[in-house]
């Protein structure tokens, strides 16, 4: 099936022996000039790229405390070395978080520190060469920016921040990644990652309305660009057509319908995902976030709710207020923004939804904590709500729920392997290998409890699992949306 070996399940979680250069490659496809330029970056690798890269590094060191402190603070204790799913799955030592950081740190030391300038050999400082640039490109695209390493580092050093800085530096010298930059360019042009124009979107939503009517006999609406409603729903565009995402979208629609909340999707901001986060570009991230603000103003809504998407929720929860705030024109009774799981959970708590758990009795479920939701956001009003709320929603609509082993969930969760701008076919090998720890955990609950399905609240996780589950002997449809489960269980009132 694959041009590479799928790693076998480990009988117990041993730490792999190093296989240097196991994943030494050319990296993903390089961005085309059009896409680079649409984002404000040079079209191709500039002539004086070394000089420009160092200049950019200096600029980022002055603008991002995380980057400056993390470059200095690492003591090479090694605590993070076995924490990355890509290292576990590939055994390539450069996929150990600290070694990944060192690819940038060696250059930082050479150009920005006393020790590196005068005693380079002693502290492992190196001049920026073409070889190092190639390593950056390869290994910073084998990091899904999942932050798992940051949880375990005594100083909280977050390799995601360093990967973002590295990608920003590479973009700024004209050496960006095709997948991310092409997608961002599409958002600017059309409004979403998939490049679905408004008429296509309208069609899709109408089709879904018909499907729901056929299946339930109830007319549930999926409105688009409707002014003056209560809620603007911003959801990843994968929700409009990919499986199992779309079943989740149907679930949101049924929840709104049942709760009597008026809502709409915006064609202008028809994308929750903000890939500019993956390339570490504050300016581009802000530009995309401002579309959401604009849509909320134009449509005169009172609340903003986000659909199921991991990094989108990070940008929404942690950054939206910064990038596109203040949101004082919205209803102050609700947090801005809200997650669809928070909304559904509140309704369930209030008894506002009639649910028939037996509708999901054909499934035994577990829940995959998406890394960005788990380690970079919150839901509800208490720390850790991001773990509790989705699980409570699942348990309210399903009879059979089992958690995966405790060191693979909550803030110790393992990434699906496809996050951080890696969800592209040209990175299939690292995606499959990086999924190993999650697949092992799933195998365990399958063996112990007969779990049949894994629910997730992230568009990337869902797409990634659909692809990689079969490599590990599972079926691709074993991944489901949380709101798909809600959709199954919700009892719709007949039309009045």
């Amino acid at each position, binding site marked *: 099936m694959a041009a590479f070996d799928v790693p076998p399940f480990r009988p117990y979680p041993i730490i792999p022996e190093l296989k240097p250069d196991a994943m030494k490659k050319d990296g993903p496809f390089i961005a085309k000039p059009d896409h680079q330029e649409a984002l404000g970056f040079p079209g191709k690798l500039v002539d004086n790229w070394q000089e420009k890269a160092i200049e950019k590094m200096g600029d980022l060191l002055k603008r991002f405390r995380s980057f400056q402190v993390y470059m200095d603070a690492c003591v090479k204790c*090694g605590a993070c070395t076995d924490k990355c799913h890509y290292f576990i799955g590939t055994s390539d030592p450069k996929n*150990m978080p600290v070694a990944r950081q060192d690819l940038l740190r060696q250059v930082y030391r050479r150009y920005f520190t006393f020790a590196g300038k005068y005693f380079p050999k002693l*502290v492992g400082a190196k001049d920026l060469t073409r070889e190092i640039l190639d390593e950056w490109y390869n290994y910073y695209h084998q990091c899904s920016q999942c932050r798992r390493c940051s949880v*375990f580092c005594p100083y909280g050093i977050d390799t995601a921040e360093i990967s973002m800085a590295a990608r920003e530096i590479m973009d700024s010298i004209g050496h960006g990644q095709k997948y991310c930059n092409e997608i961002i360019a599409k958002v600017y042009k059309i409004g979403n990652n998939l490049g679905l124009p408004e008429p296509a979107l309208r069609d899709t939503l109408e089709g879904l309305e018909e499907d729901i009517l056929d299946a339930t006999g109830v007319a549930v609406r999926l409105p688009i660009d409707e002014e003056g409603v209560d809620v603007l729903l911003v959801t990843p565009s994968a929700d409009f057509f990919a499986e199992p995402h779309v079943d989740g979208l149907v679930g949101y629609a049924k929840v709104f319908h049942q709760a009597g909340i008026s809502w709409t999707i915006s064609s202008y901001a028809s994308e929750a995902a903000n890939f500019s986060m993956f390339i570490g570009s504050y300016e581009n991230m802000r530009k995309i976030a401002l579309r959401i603000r604009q849509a909320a103003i134009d449509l005169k809504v009172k609340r903003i709710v986000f659909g199921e998407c991991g990094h989108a929720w990070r940008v929404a929860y942690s950054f939206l207020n910064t990038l596109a705030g203040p949101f004082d024109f919205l209803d102050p009774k609700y947090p801005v923004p809200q997650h669809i799981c928070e909304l559904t959970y509140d309704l369930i708590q209030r008894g506002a939804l009639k649910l028939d758990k037996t509708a999901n009795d054909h499934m035994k479920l577990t829940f995959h904590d998406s890394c960005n939701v788990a380690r970079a956001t*919150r839901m509800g009003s208490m720390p850790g709500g991001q773990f509790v709320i989705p699980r409570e929603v699942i348990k309210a609509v399903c009879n059979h729920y089992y958690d995966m082993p405790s060191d693979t969930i909550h803030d110790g969760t393992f990434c699906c392997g496809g996050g951080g701008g890696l969800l592209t076919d040209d990175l299939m090998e690292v995606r499959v290998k990086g999924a190993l720890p999650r697949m092992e955990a799933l195998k365990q609950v399958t063996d112990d409890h007969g779990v049949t399905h894994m629910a997730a609240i992230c568009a990337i996780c869902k797409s990634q699992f659909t692809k990689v589950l079969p490599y590990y002997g599972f079926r691709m449809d074993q991944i489901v949306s949380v709101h798909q489960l809600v959709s199954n269980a919700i009892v719709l009132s007949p039309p009045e």
Partner: protein
Amino acid sequence: MDFISVVYALLFYLASVIFVVFVARKIYQYATVPAPLKIPTMPAPLTTSGVALRLAREVVFFESLFRSNKWIWLFGWMFHLALLVVLLRHLRYFIDPVWMWVALIQPFGKYASFFMLIGLAGLLARRIVVERIRYISNPSDYLMLLLLLLIGMSGTMLTFVLHTDIVQLKAFTLGLLYFDWQPLPKDPAVLVHLGAVIVLMIIFPFSKLLHAPGIFFSPSRNQVDNAREKRHIAEWATKLETPNN
């Protein structure tokens, strides 16, 4: 005053100035470079006092490291804690008369040096033996441990084996403080011990020892989780908000 004593005295002043000035510069840098986005590693505290507690747990117990790797935690924590006790014990050479509590910890301080050495030896052994850690180590990482071992061993020797004229040594250190220089006992162990401490103070601001101030400025650990409630924005980012942007 003899030549060696003068050299050591001058080096101590030099090392102190370098240490203070350059560490202060680093702290100033960390404090002034903005953190434009909210990036605490979640779940994070919702209040400033919660954050203070989180940092305190990191600094006092090495909480994250404990969760991460029990061996590194054991050796690392043992070393740091013992070092603290040993340093406090050393206050007796800088204060006259010696404070009550400093006198009381004297026996603990003496034996803590062994724990310090065990911790350091454990860290060094792991660095050499564990393939992953060997891979990420630079020469400076070994040298740092060796330097600390040298300080610890020479100090322990002075305490337990090669007793020196401790009264004279204290006269030297107090003399440094009050700019009234006194000769230094010339035992080799004293010279090695003090020399190595001088080297450590000088390299501190230019090395990974910056993890000490660094941890307090790590945004993933020191930020409050309140992004939705309170708008957090860096000064350079507000400039993007002027109309023509």
